[in-house]
């Protein structure tokens, strides 16, 4: 199971600002190892953020997103104490879901 994300959800006025740091190699599939073998592509393909069962952001990524991806976005609403959930799925079918409490 992949390492946990670091999620910060902060109430800003009548909105919630979300900042996420994800633990992932985001290997492009273009690099070669010391023996000259291509290192296979391994990267997050889809990301979904939900609040109260509603999707507040979804994304499709390619390997050009940086290693240990960072994402920052904002949505209207969100109450302190409620949770924002982020899920990512990668090209190996690995998945990770973490949540953060809006503070």
């Amino acid at each position, binding site marked *: 199971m992949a390492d946990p994300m670091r999620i910060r959800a902060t109430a800003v006025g009548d909105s919630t600002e979300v900042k996420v740091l994800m633990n992932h190699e985001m290997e492009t599939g273009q690099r070669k190892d010391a023996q000259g073998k291509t290192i296979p592509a391994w990267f997050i*393909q889809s990301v979904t953020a939900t609040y109260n069962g509603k999707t507040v952001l*979804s994304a*499709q990524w390619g390997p*050009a*997103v*940086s290693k240990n991806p*960072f*994402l920052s976005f904002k949505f209207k609403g969100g109450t302190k104490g409620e949770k924002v959930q982020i899920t990512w799925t990668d*090209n190996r079918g690995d*998945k990770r879901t973490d949540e953060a409490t809006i503070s």
Partner: protein
Amino acid sequence: MDVERRKVLKAGGGMTLLTMLAAAGWLEPQAALAADAWNAAAFDTRSMDETMKALGGGAPAQSKDITFFQTPDIAENGAVVPVGITSAIPKTESIAILIEKNPNMLAAVFDIPPGTDPSLSTRVKMGQSSNVYALVKADGKYYVASKEIKVTLGGCGG
């Protein structure tokens, strides 16, 4: 994916790839979570023309209402280039980041549901100095803004 595709095709012609993605994957979290919802074709284009064709657009209209924020002109290292995009175009549905000189142009596509700010930032890899495009779909139409980001190497190259 097939069920959604049928639904979408039934709804009418002139569907762009982006709209199909929206119908099949983005607006339905379950489908978005499935690995096979990822659109390999869109992430496999090598030129601006190819990308726009795959996304169902001709040349998108240049728009001054798409702006970059916290996006420097020079990146000390191409592995991590911060890119922030805000769209002031009403009814923005999606924001995509394209990097012209990367092996594959499309870096990321974000679907913006109603209620979410059409403004976000992330970090991308750039293989070399290049134009970076912010492609916005709003109310069914495409718009674009671009910025040149120079990539350099610091220090002793380590």
